[in-house]
């Protein structure tokens, strides 16, 4: 005779072990911290090396020049490039109440990045058992993303830009941590190859009910040919917010900042 065992959901007594409650509390900390952030904007491409970080940094600077409080969360933990793009001073992170002060670029962009924490030139590495590293490594990176969102004193921001690594994993983690899906800015270069990678990433974003603000075409007028931005814009019904030439001047960035602001 099988034992008569009640199911998990039948057991409703409070238990301080409650892992689920702890996860809920984590989400609440993220939401509380971001209550003063008007919009979280994920800079996404799905393809590596197309200029996500370059665009994120240039856009953040221009937004601040235009008088908008702006933060950049560098979510590329294994290849963090934002601090050098923003000319962040190397300094110790200090504490402010229950949070860590973001670093401040010379123009006033607030930023946090794994590069601020790692020893020069060393890759991100975690403590843990030798085996099955890939299983817990992803979970740890998601925890790092959660702590970068919840434990940095972002303060009042008009936009918090999130510079994503190539691929779709981090975007999914970000979406799961936020109460509402982030707005998405897609970055592509003109080629068909880039278009296809960005298309896949954008389909993923749509599935997660993220709002697509538009597409930015980078490295225009150089060796890359194609019309990725126009094709993606037509397919997803979104605007081409900017075409960025090689070595853009500040006025190019100002125009991009204006068009991003106009999507609010």
């Amino acid at each position, binding site marked *: 005779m099988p034992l008569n065992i009640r199911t998990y959901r039948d057991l409703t*007594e409070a238990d*301080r072990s409650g892992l689920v409650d*702890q996860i809920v509390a984590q989400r609440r900390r993220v939401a509380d911290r971001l209550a003063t952030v008007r919009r979280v904007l994920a800079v996404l491409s799905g393809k590596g090396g197309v200029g996500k970080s370059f665009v994120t940094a240039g856009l953040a600077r221009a937004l601040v020049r235009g008088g908008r409080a702006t933060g950049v969360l560098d979510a590329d933990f294994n290849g963090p490039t934002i601090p050098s793009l923003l000319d962040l001073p190397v300094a110790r992170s200090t*504490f402010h109440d229950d949070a860590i002060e973001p670093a401040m670029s010379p123009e006033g962009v607030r930023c946090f990045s794994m590069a601020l*924490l790692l*020893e020069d030139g060393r890759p991100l590495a*975690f*403590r843990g058992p030798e*085996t099955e590293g890939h*299983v817990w490594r992803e979970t740890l990176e998601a925890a790092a993303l959660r702590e970068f969102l919840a434990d940095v004193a972002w303060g009042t921001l008009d936009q918090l830009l999130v510079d994503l690594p190539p691929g779709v994993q981090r975007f999914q983690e970000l979406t799961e941590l936020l109460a509402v899906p982030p707005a998405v800015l897609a970055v592509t270069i003109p080629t068909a190859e880039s278009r296809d990678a960005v298309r896949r990433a954008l389909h993923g974003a749509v599935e997660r009910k993220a709002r697509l603000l538009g597409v930015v075409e980078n490295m225009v007028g150089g060796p890359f040919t194609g019309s990725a931005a126009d094709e993606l814009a037509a397919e997803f019904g979104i605007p081409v917010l900017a075409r960025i030439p090689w070595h853009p001047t500040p006025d190019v960035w100002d125009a991009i900042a204006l068009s991003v602001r106009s999507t609010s």
Partner: protein
Amino acid sequence: MKFLCVECDRQMQFEERQLPGDGTLAAAFRCPACGRTVALLTNPMETQLVASLGVKIGGTTIEPQPMETVRGMVTTGRDDAFDDGKGETGTGKSPRPAWSPEAQERLARVPNFVRGMVKRIYLDYAKERGIAEITPAIMDTARTELGLEEM
């Protein structure tokens, strides 16, 4: 994860946790009706998975420190990444606990990247309980009570 005492048909309650220090974890649960205790034992892989979620089997009584998981788990952090000040938080009125020489020695072995945070946690723990001197034994108790696998 819950434990049911099948004979009594009662949900068992978390009792205590032990961290032997070899990457494994033991958590004991007791049946409120018959008093029987069972222990959940996790291997290093399972322990790591739970820790990487930033949660503690058996819960914890203190608020997490800022970037607790990153500071506790990253091994390639810069020595001077954080300016922890004197490591004092908490607003308790009780005087600041002292560190025994052995406890100081043990603290000195903690990597710089996380040391300030570890120090703050032990200080807060001692203050909250009115402990005047932090010794290695106190550190051990705090570690299991607070579920600080990584420290």
